[in-house]
């Protein structure tokens, strides 16, 4: 269990979900949410091409910076804030222990 970290996901209704996340499964935040059946579509499968895993980083963690693909997709998304990220571009690593994210609204 030492390879498991704790991550909190606040859903669109404001409910907090405390998730145990494995760091040795090559998973990202989009996949983690899907594995817990939280309402994240992950339509494009993790290519930073649909923004269905748009989320806000609520806690004070420093995360790998946005790459070009992610920036380009966030340009086309709605409800974007300075702490917006695409979950599929955030690999789950040990330093994310205690991370809190909030799922962004999905547009029509």
């Amino acid at each position, binding site marked *: 269990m030492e390879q498991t970290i704790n991550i909190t996901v606040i859903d669109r209704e404001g409910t907090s979900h405390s998730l145990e996340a494995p760091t040795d499964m090559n998973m990202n935040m989009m996949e983690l949410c899907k594995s817990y059946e939280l309402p994240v579509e992950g339509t494009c*499968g993790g*290519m930073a091409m*649909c923004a269905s895993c748009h989320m806000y980083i609520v806690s004070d963690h420093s995360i790998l910076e946005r790459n070009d693909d992610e920036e380009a997709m966030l*340009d086309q998304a709605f409800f974007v804030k300075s702490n917006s990220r695409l979950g599929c571009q955030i690999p789950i690593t040990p330093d994310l222990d205690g991370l809190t994210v909030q799922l962004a609204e999905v547009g029509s």
Partner: protein
Amino acid sequence: MIETDILIIGAGPCGLFTVFEAGLLKLRCHLVDALPQTGGQLTEIYPKKPIYDIPGFPEVLAGDLIDHLMKQAAPFKPGFTLGERAEKLERGEDGHFLLTTSRGTVHKAPVIAIAGGLGCFEPRKPPISNIVDFEDKGIEYIVRDPNFYKGKKVIISGGGDSALDWTNFLANGVASEVSLVHRSKSFRGHPDSVQKVLDMAASGKIKLFTDAEVVGVNGGDHLTEITLQHADNSHSTLETDHWLPLFGLSPKLGPLADWGLNIEKNSIEVNTFDYSTNVDGIYAIGDINTYPGKLKLILCGFHEATLMVQSAFKRIYPDKNYVLKYTTVNGVNGF
């Protein structure tokens, strides 16, 4: 009216491979797709991305896989209705299905195969509550005919290629006034198009609003003004005849949600015996279906297509016996 044996909804990889497998059984196919090109999400979303789990191809670009599938299907001369969304499905007196598209094209077939993938790709709509009041009354998500904007004031939103390209096009002798609104400072389109837009903004040919977002629309019978929110949270209004929010496409299940099919979490429930749905004569294959153990993989969709056409054959020709033949022995005998 277009008549065929299997009417395939969705011209992605599964739909295209269905043409081949159906062709081996001497069944003809016609494909309908909302996108103007074949390939579904492979050509629309990631044509230049590699796929590594197609059996026999250690690596293949998504766009190349579609080219190969088109070539493989070609001997069986599939028909295509592209750029039209499958809208209305009815059953005729003879039990055959009648499918009408968004542009009114009617198709008739005894079997429907839904290979709809993620659904239809539709424009992303900005989250403004009264935006629907002005749709086609000054707000258009797609430029259908550029001449429609002749002599008009046009505001374009977006930072990608389509926003940049239409800004360039409409500002050169079409619209009377063009403004481009973009949420950030940087643009991610082709460097050439970005430079053209920046040059036009510098020379005053267009108005450019960066770090800004359209947050309100207003007017009577027709759009007359939009409200901009700027980075410092201040607001301003702009008079306009048209607003084109160009934020790309996202998939929606669309009209087929109303065809009486059993749907669970945006997917169509099927029987894994032959990938039939709860509606007699309608099958669903590929990413759009669901069953216990479903994996959304292209290779699983190919398998589903292959089994599905066997069932379709028995449905269309209940009295004919069928014996599996190998292409290696018999070759591919097209129509």
